[in-house]
């Protein structure tokens, strides 16, 4: 490494790390945002994320195409979301409790089916080298941006627009704000929620494939450590807005990149404590953005019923 950047390498590495670490957050939170806008909570996205990581890696390994892996992960996520949506459609089934169950099932299934995938190497996703103009290796590493991240960044305003300005967005929001009103208008509330949960699962699965196919970029059982759950908390912080989900994901990504960035310049004291930074941040944000006396005005009203 010729021209080192010294301490400037830290913010640069955090910035570069943020685009990598934030991508799973971004996809899961956009998916959960869509699901929650329809009035349902899917806490099981942590399991979906891990299943997506495993199946994405598996499909990529078997077909030799990383992009097919991404698609496969999305399909698995879609199926898990549909299962959650279907069971929750039954009377008296609690979506929070089912989410916990689906989280454990997803992780268990992924570990079971993923056992043969720990050894082999699957084709990985490539990156767009935005930093190719520079000779500095650190800068180039920081500016290597994965296509999925770009997709996610584009998806956020798209989903925002879709929810605010299209017919299906209106239907989803109506179902989320008042199931009674939606029913009176002739919409099948359970069907809309099932589709919204399945679509959310698709996005979470894609987010999982990023973990195994790009960063960290292999399949193992320690791949996800609560990113799926943090993304659910992040939706509350983003007050159910896809655009704010994007900003919040970048913030979380930055927090998650601090530990590795410090390590990359040789600061290893408190490495494990820095690893806890995203969780502490999530908790702090939840404390700051919640209120004991009233629900957030942006919260879909049907979520309040479920609590």
């Amino acid at each position: 490494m010729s021209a080192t950047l010294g301490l400037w390498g830290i913010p640069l590495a955090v910035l570069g790390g943020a685009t990598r670490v934030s991508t799973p957050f971004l996809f899961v939170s956009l998916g959960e945002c869509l699901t929650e806008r329809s009035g349902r909570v899917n806490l099981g996205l942590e399991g979906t994320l891990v299943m997506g990581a495993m199946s994405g890696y598996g499909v990529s390994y078997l077909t030799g195409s990383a992009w097919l892996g991404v698609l496969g992960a999305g399909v698995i996520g879609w199926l898990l979301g549909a299962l959650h949506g279907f069971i929750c459609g039954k009377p008296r089934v609690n979506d929070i409790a089912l989410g916990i169950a689906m989280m454990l099932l997803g992780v268990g299934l992924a570990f079971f089916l993923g056992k043969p995938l720990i050894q082999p190497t699957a084709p990985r996703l490539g990156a767009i080298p935005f930093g190719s103009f520079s000779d500095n290796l650190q800068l180039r590493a920081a500016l290597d941006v994965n296509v999925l991240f770009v997709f996610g960044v584009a998806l956020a305003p798209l989903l925002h627009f879709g929810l605010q300005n299209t017919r299906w967005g209106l239907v989803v929001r109506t179902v989320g704000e008042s199931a009674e009103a939606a029913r009176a208008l002739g919409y099948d509330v359970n069907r809309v929620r099932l589709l919204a949960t399945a679509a959310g699962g698709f996005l979470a699965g894609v987010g999982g494939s990023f973990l195994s196919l790009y960063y960290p970029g292999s399949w193992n059982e320690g791949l996800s450590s609560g990113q799926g759950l943090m993304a659910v908390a992040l939706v509350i912080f983003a007050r159910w807005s896809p655009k704010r989900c994007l900003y919040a994901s970048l913030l979380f990504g930055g927090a998650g990149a601090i530990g590795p960035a410090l390590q990359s310049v040789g600061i290893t004291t408190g490495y494990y404590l820095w690893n806890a930074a995203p969780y502490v941040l999530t908790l702090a944000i939840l404390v700051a953005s919640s209120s004991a006396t009233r629900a957030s005005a942006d919260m879909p009203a049907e979520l309040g019923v479920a609590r």
Partner: protein
Amino acid sequence: MKLEPLLIPLFALLASLALFGVFVALAGQRPLDVYFEMYRGAFGTWFSFQNTLQRACPLLLTALCTALPARAGLVVIGGEGAFVVGGLAAAAAGVALAGTPRGVILGGLFAAGAAAGALWIGLSGFLRARRGVNETISSLLLTYIGVALLNHFVEGPLRDPESLNKPSTRHIGEANMLGSIPGLDVHWGLAVGVLACIAAYVLMERTVFGFAAALVGGNTRAARLSGIGVASIVVTTCALGGAAAGVAGAFEVAAVHGRANASLAAGYGYTGVLVSFLARHNALAVIPVSIFLGGIAASGGLLQRVFGLPDATVSVLQGILFVVLIASDTLYGRIRWGAAKGAHA
């Protein structure tokens, strides 16, 4: 229809065993053989039954971490975190008290474990009561923070320099460790766990406090209007549950490992959540359910050896069981004279 809370979970259990059979068949094994080996590995011999009881010990206590707050209407799933920080605090106390009499060491060790666990889940309850923070998410976030703390302390400040391959705290000393219950090869955590479940049952079903908690769980507004200190009930049930899980972690140190290291985070906290849901958050029902799930966990080793199935097989069965169980909630009030409508998982 007092039979429903018994029959429906039983039905869910059978349905999930059937689904698990399909899964096992897809993995290329004969389901009946697998069931038989699981029975043999869990309850078949005196040896395997003791193994089952050994694994049920932590579950008895971590299940209370979900069951007690559930009475007040909370869904706490952070028992793993309370277990881990409880174990870490216990090991730290045990090492700090080295040189004092055995009774002092063990007393301090368990007090530290209970206090750390109570603090951990109590914080979740406090945030819930004061700031309206969702306790399900906060308790799970605290679990990740707890595991990070464990890693930090066993790799750094509390590390035994002689633990090379697996960073650990110093050993509390073989002579100071807890022995087995006479006549059994199971440590005292079993007796304490059973007593704790009975105590929790009495507290929740036979005392004013338990009644107030049930009122908070049933209708928080009504409870507040009738003058019940909702916040203190929420925090207390959470802290008690956390203390139970913390004590479980302390037993893991005092009776099994003798020190704290990464093997504390073995998933007993998560299985405890399943136990509590399967027991419908009834502290007495936690006892048989813990033994049952302890049996499933104990049979995992045999499944690996006999069939070459991965260790995650047990997690898959637990996951299926959990999902089917929650789905079976839809059956309540719909069974008439044994003409049950089947639930699809």
